[in-house]
C-alpha cells in the first residue's frame, strides 16, 4: 500500500527516517560551479550515489528523482527502473519526487526529457545500477564468494552454497559513500522482469478511492485562504485599491497589493472568494489588443528574433527556375493548457525561510523565483512538488506558487491559493500562435527538389527558469520584466542541425557544412524562424512549436504529394532516409490497411458524409521518438462537422519501459490533439481575453463518440530511451487535415477546424459555387 499513497502521506507515515537521513546528511553549502544537469548548482551532489538512493534496514529502497509525475506515469516507470536495476519488487521501492530539500536538481520535468534523462546510462538509472553492484560487492565480502557468482532476487543476495544476505543487512540505514559509477552496466533489456512490463500505475488505487493527495488537498496547520484579483484587461495597471470595499466581509485578514499584484487573504476559502469578488480596484486601461481576425498578418510584420536553421543557399534560384512551385500558408492559434483543476498552491513564507507546496514542473527554478519575489535566500526556500491536475506544460502552476508566496509573506501565515477558472484562463502561458509559410518545387520527375519554410511564432515570457520570475503573470505583476525578444537578423547556420522545435521538415537532408542531420533526402532546403513579441504570455504547451510546425509540414507534404499525383505514404517514403521514421510510416500504413492511391479520392459526391484518411509522421525533436499516425474521418459536407472514426498510431521510443503506460499516453495524446484540432482556441476582443471558462473555450467532453485508437508499438531494446508523451499529439492536426482533404478535396489550413472553416474550405474547392 505504501506506493499507493502520495509522497507527503508516505513521509508522514513511514518514510520520515529515511528521508531525513538522506536530506540532512547530504546538505552541503551551495556549490559555486554549474551543476551537472545543465541546470543550477544545488546542495545535493548528483555524482554521489547517496543523493539518489537509500536502503532502509527493512530493505525498503527510497529513490530520489528530479522528474515528477503529473499523470504521465513517471512515478510508475521510475519505480520500475529502480526495482529492475536493484532486483527488488516494485512495492519495496518508494520514489520521492522533486523536493528541493532531498532530490537532485534535474531542472524542469518537461519536453519529453524525463525518460532520456533518467533511463539511459546516467542519473537515476546509473545510480540504481551502481547501488546494485555496490551491494553485490559488499555481499561478496560478507559471504566470501566472488560477486559474479552471486544471484539476487527480491533484495536477497544468494551464494551457490546456500548462504544469503539481504540488502537491509548489508547497508540498511547507512550511506553508500561512493560516487555514481559511469561504467557500471545496466541490466540488459533481454533480462528485464519489471521494466518493459505493463505494471499498473502505482497511484491508481489512491486515485480511484479518493485517498490521493493533490496539492489542492494540502492542509498545513494555521493555513488560511487567498484569492487573487487579476487585471481585467491585458496591460492594465493598478490605479487605486479601495480596501474599505471588503471590510464588511467576515474573516478577511488582509488586502495585499504589490505593484500590480492584488490579492486577498481570509480565514475561509468562501470568504476569500467573496472578498476577491467584491474588492473595488480601479485599473488604468490596457493599451488595447489587435483584432483577432488580422493577428497572423501582424505576426508577419513585426520586428523579430530570427534564426536560420538550415540553408542550402540555392533555394531562391531553384524556386525561380522550377517548372512547378507550390506555396501554402498555415495558421495555428493560441491555445490553453486548460488544466481540469484550476491551479492551487500553498506557501508558508516567514522572515528567514519559506516552504512552498507546489504543482510546478520545476522545483529548483521555482525556489529561485520565490526567492526573488520574497527576498528569502534561495537555500532557505524549500519547494515541495505535490501533484496538481494534469498540466501539459506551463499552466498556472508556477504563477499560483508565486501568488501563494506573496500572500503568505504579507500575512506571516501559511496561505493556500486556489485560482478560479477565469484566473486560470487569463493567468497561464498559452501555447504559441504561429504562422508558417511553405514553398516547394518539384523536379522533372515529380520529386521534391526544394523545400523552403519560414515560421513566425508569438512569444512572451515562458518558463521562469532560475532568473526570470517576470516570465509568468504574477512575477510580471509584482514588478519583474518578462524575457524580452531582442530583434536579431539570422546568421548562417553552423554546427549540428538543431531541430528541437521540428521547424525543419523530416524530408530534407539537413546539411550544415557537409554534415547532414536531417531525416530526408531533399537537397534544396531552407528554414528560417522568427520569434515575435506576443501580447499574451506564452510558454510550452504539449509539443510546443513542434505540433504547430509539424501540422504545417505534414499537411504541405500532402499537398505536394497530391500535386505530384502520388500516394501520400509512398511519396513520404520516397523522400525519407532515416530508418526509424520510415519504419513507423510503414507500420502505421500496414496496420491501417492503407490503400495506395493519390488523395483526394476520386468521384466522391460533394454532398453528404464523405469518408477519408490521412497520414502524418514525425521524428520528434529530430531524434527524440518517432511516430506515424493514420486518421480516418468522416466529413459532413452540409454542416462542416468532422467526425473522427479511427486513429492508428505506430510509435517508436526506443526500449519501452511500460507498454500500458505508453498506450495510455498515446491514446490521451491523440484525443487531446483531436480536441485542439477541432475546437480549441483562445479568443479576445479589443482589450481582454474572452475565452475564460468551459463555455467559451471548447474542449471535447467525455460523452463524445470516442474514435477507435489502435497502437502499434515498435520496441527497440538496444536504442537510446527517448520521450513518448508528446509524439502522438504532434501528428493529429496534420493527419485530420489530410483526411479531410482526402475525403473532400478541401484543404483546411487553419486550426481549429471549426465547422465554419471546413465549410469555407469546401466552398473554395475548384469548380465549387
Amino acid at each position, binding site marked *: 500500500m505504501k506506493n499507493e499513497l502520495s509522497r507527503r502521506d508516505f513521509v508522514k507515515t513511514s518514510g520520515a527516517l529515511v528521508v531525513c537521513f538522506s536530506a540532512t546528511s547530504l546538505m552541503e553549502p551551495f556549490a559555486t560551479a554549474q551543476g551537472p544537469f545543465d541546470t543550477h548548482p544545488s546542495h545535493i551532489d548528483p555524482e554521489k550515489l547517496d543523493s539518489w538512493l537509500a536502503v532502509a534496514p527493512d530493505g525498503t529502497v527510497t529513490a530520489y528523482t528530479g522528474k515528477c509525475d503529473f499523470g504521465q506515469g513517471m512515478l510508475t516507470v521510475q519505480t520500475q527502473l529502480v526495482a529492475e536495476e536493484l532486483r527488488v519488487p516494485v512495492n519495496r521501492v518508494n520514489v520521492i519526487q522533486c523536493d528541493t530539500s532531498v532530490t537532485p536538481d534535474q531542472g524542469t520535468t518537461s519536453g519529453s526529457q524525463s525518460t532520456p534523462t533518467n533511463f539511459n546510462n546516467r542519473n537515476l538509472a546509473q545510480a540504481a545500477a551502481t547501488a546494485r553492484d555496490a551491494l553485490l560487492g559488499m555481499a561478496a565480502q560478507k559471504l566470501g564468494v566472488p560477486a559474479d557468482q552471486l544471484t539476487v532476487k527480491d533484495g536477497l543476495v544468494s551464494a551457490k552454497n546456500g548462504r544469503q544476505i539481504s540488502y537491509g543487512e548489508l547497508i540498511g540505514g547507512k550511506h553508500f559513500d561512493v560516487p555514481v559509477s559511469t561504467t557500471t552496466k545496466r541490466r540488459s533489456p533481454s533480462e528485464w522482469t519489471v521494466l518493459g512490463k505493463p505494471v499498473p500505475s502505482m497511484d491508481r488505487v489512491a486515485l480511484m478511492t479518493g*485517498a490521493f493527495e493533490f496539492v489542492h488537498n494540502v*492542509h498545513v496547520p494555521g493555513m488560511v485562504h487567498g484569492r487573487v484579483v487579476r487585471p481585467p484587461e491585458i496591460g492594465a495597471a493598478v490605479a487605486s485599491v479601495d480596501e474599505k470595499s471588503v471590510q464588511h466581509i467576515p474573516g478577511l485578514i488582509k488586502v495585499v497589493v504589490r505593484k500590480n499584484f492584488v490579492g486577498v487573504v481570509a480565514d*475561509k476559502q*468562501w470568504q476569500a472568494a467573496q472578498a476577491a469578488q467584491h474588492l473595488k480596484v480601479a485599473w488604468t486601461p490596457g493599451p488595447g489588443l489587435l483584432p483577432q481576425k488580422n493577428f497572423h498578418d501582424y505576426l508577419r510584420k513585426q520586428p523579430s528574433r530570427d534564426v536560420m536553421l538550415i540553408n542550402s543557399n540555392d533555394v531562391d534560384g531553384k524556386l525561380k527556375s522550377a517548372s512547378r512551385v507550390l506555396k501554402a500558408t498555415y495558421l495555428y492559434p493560441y491555445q490553453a493548457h486548460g488544466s*481540469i483543476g484550476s491551479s492551487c498552491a500553498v506557501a508558508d513564507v516567514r522572515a528567514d525561510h519559506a516552504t512552498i507546496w507546489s504543482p510546478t514542473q520545476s522545483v529548483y527554478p521555482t525556489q529561485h523565483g520565490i526567492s526573488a519575489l520574497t527576498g528569502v535566500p534561495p537555500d532557505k526556500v524549500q519547494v515541495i512538488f505535490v*501533484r496538481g491536475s494534469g498540466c501539459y506544460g506551463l499552466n498556472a502552476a508556477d504563477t499560483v506558487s508565486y501568488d501563494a508566496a506573496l500572500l503568505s509573506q504579507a500575512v506571516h501565515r501559511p496561505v493556500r491559493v486556489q485560482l478560479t477558472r477565469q484566473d486560470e484562463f487569463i493567468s497561464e502561458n498559452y501555447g504559441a500562435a504561429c504562422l508558417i509559410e511553405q514553398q516547394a518545387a518539384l523536379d522533372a520527375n515529380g520529386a521534391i527538389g526544394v523545400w523552403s519554410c519560414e515560421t513566425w511564432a508569438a512569444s512572451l515570457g515562458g518558463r521562469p527558469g532560475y532568473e526570470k520570475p517576470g516570465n509568468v503573470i504574477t512575477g510580471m505583476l509584482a514588478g519583474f520584466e518578462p524575457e524580452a525578444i531582442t530583434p536579431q537578423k539570422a546568421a548562417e547556420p553552423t554546427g549540428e542541425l538543431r531541430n528541437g522545435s521540428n521547424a525543419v521538415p523530416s524530408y530534407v537532408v539537413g546539411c550544415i557544412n557537409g554534415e547532414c542531420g536531417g531525416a530526408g533526402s531533399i537537397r534544396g532546403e531552407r528554414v528560417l524562424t522568427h520569434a515575435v513579441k506576443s501580447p499574451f504570455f506564452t510558454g510550452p504547451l504539449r509539443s510546443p512549436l513542434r505540433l504547430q510546425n509539424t501540422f504545417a509540414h505534414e499537411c504541405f507534404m500532402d499537398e505536394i504529394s497530391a500535386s505530384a499525383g502520388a500516394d501520400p505514404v509512398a511519396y513520404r517514403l520516397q523522400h525519407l532516409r532515416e530508418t526509424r521514421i520510415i519504419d513507423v510510416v510503414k507500420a502505421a500504413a500496414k496496420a491501417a490497411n492503407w490503400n495506395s492511391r493519390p488523395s483526394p479520392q476520386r468521384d466522391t459526391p460533394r454532398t453528404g458524409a464523405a469518408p477519408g484518411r490521412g497520414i502524418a509522421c514525425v521524428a520528434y525533436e529530430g531524434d527524440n521518438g518517432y511516430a506515424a499516425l493514420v486518421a480516418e474521418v468522416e466529413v459532413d459536407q452540409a454542416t462542416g462537422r468532422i467526425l473522427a472514426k479511427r486513429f492508428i498510431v505506430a510509435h517508436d521510443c526506443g526500449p519501452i519501459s511500460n507498454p500500458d503506460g505508453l498506450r495510455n499516453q498515446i491514446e490521451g495524446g491523440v484525443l487531446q490533439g483531436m480536441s485542439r484540432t477541432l475546437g480549441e482556441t483562445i479568443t479576445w476582443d479589443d482589450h481582454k481575453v474572452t475565452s475564460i471558462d468551459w463555455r467559451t473555450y471548447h474542449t471535447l467532453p467525455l460523452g463524445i463518440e470516442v474514435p477507435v485508437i489502435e497502437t502499434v508499438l515498435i520496441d527497440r531494446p538496444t536504442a537510446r530511451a527517448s520521450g513518448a508523451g508528446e509524439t502522438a499529439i504532434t501528428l493529429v492536426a496534420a493527419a485530420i487535415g489530410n483526411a479531410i482533404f482526402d475525403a473532400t478535396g478541401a484543404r483546411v489550413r487553419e486550426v481549429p477546424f471549426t465547422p465554419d472553416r471546413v465549410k469555407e474550405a469546401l466552398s473554395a474547392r475548384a469548380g465549387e459555387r
Partner: protein
Amino acid sequence: MAAVSLKVNGHVHTVDADPQTPLLYVLSDDLQLRGPKFGCGLGQCGTCTVIIDGRAVRSCVTPVSTVQQQEITTLEGLGTPEKPHAIQQAFMDEGAAQCGFCLSGVMLTAKALLDENPHAPDEQIQKTMSNVLCRCFAHTRMMRAIKRYQRSRA
C-alpha cells in the same frame, strides 16, 4: 456564520459556515475530504461532483445550507483502498486515469446514472457524460470502465 449539519459518507458533521458557502469548500476544507475537487467553480466540468440522495450534484455551485438533511456521498464514501467499490475496481482494471483529478466527477456521474438506470443504452451514457470533462483525455479507458461497471452489475 451558522452551525451547519451535514451527513457525509454515513457520518454526521457539524461545521460553522456561512449558509451560502458552496458545499465543496466545506467538504474539502472543513472535512478535509479529497474526493470532490475544485475544477471550475461554475458547475461546468464535474470534478466537484458528489452524490446526494442518488443524484450526481455539482458541489461547487450548491450552497451548503440546501443539503443539510440529505445523504451526501463522495468518492471516498464508495469504497476503500482495501475494499474498493465495483466502479472503482472497474476503473482500476481498465487503468482509466492519467492525472486522476477528474475521477470523482467521472465515476460519481456514471454511478448515479447506472444506479438509476442499470441498462442505460450507450447513447444515454454518452449524453450524461457530455457534461463531464477530462483534460488528459483518458476517454477511451474511462468509457470502457463505465461499460465494465455496467456489465458487472447486470
